[in-house]
């Protein structure tokens, strides 16, 4: 059920990745201020936006779970958050590399943008032990949904707080009085953003398909009364 349309989606993602990388290196003009280093922008910023939106989407799925009590939505919420945490790791690493190249430091502790993203990331990193600590699957799903909604609501609040705070070194690219990105850079950026969003959707679908297959195997094992191969995962929700 979850695997439907996965192949064209994967092909589209790979094609978009190739197109975006080509545009980044062979079409986008060099930045007058930062030069070649600014190419990291096309990777780092879309990853960050998609990761943050993914956290919010996880919260929306959690609301659907609490409203309907359908475990499917809990699985969607779990996978969305899981994928956004992975994207978050990439954001932190690429951001650190950019910071080192641009500012000479791997991390700047008094920069609100960096620290706020780290706080959000660490908050979601606690989602796994929080989930793992609850044995009963029903309670686990319910508490995890409450966590996902609360944390998901914190993400836009945190984003707005950072936008209102005074930045020290991290640039504000969009919606500034100075005009933001020039046309060619904006085009490449939007292409990269679409690619990252597509990649996120594909990986979420991939993960859900794998979980669904694993759930079906467990159900089949129970129906056949076959011996279990080993301890099953207690963290990930089962998808039927």
């Amino acid at each position, binding site marked *: 059920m979850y695997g439907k349309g996965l192949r064209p989606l994967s092909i589209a993602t790979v094609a978009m990745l190739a197109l975006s*990388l080509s545009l980044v290196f062979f079409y986008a003009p060099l930045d007058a201020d930062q030069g070649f280093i600014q190419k*990291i922008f096309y990777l*780092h910023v879309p990853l960050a936006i998609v990761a943050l939106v993914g956290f919010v989407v996880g919260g929306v799925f959690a609301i659907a779970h609490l409203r309907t009590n359908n475990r499917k939505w809990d699985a969607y919420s779990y996978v969305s958050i899981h994928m956004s945490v992975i994207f978050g790791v*990439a954001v932190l690493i690429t951001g650190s590399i950019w910071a080192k190249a641009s500012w000479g430091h791997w991390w700047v502790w008094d920069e609100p943008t960096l620290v706020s993203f780290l706080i959000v990331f660490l908050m979601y990193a606690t989602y796994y032990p929080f989930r793992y600590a609850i044995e009963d699957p029903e309670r686990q799903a319910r508490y995890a949904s409450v966590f996902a909604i609360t944390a998901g609501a914190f993400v836009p609040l945190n984003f707005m707080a950072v936008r209102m705070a005074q930045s020290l070194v991290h640039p504000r690219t969009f919606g500034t009085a100075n005009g933001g990105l020039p046309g060619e850079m904006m085009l490449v950026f939007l292409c990269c953003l679409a690619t990252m969003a597509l990649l996120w959707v594909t990986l979420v679908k991939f993960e859900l398909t794998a979980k669904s*297959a694993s759930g079906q195997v467990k159900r089949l*094992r129970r129906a056949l009364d076959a011996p279990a191969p080993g301890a099953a995962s207690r963290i990930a929700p089962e998808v039927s």
Partner: protein
Amino acid sequence: MDALASLLPLGAPALPLDEAGKYVAAAFIVFMVLLVVYVAIMAAKLQRIERELRELAGFAEQRKQEEQRDEVNA
């Protein structure tokens, strides 16, 4: 071969792979490595599911044969 190599720079503009180039390359390589690691983990998961399915199919087959044998004996 040499002629082909000489044509490459015409199609692709030169990338300034100096000090900045190393950092840009590192950022993109980290992203690709993360992606490959994730796909490898998923591939391992799918292999495990496939193995379990094979086991279950064998188990079901064995049970069916036992049932048929019991029927013949009865």
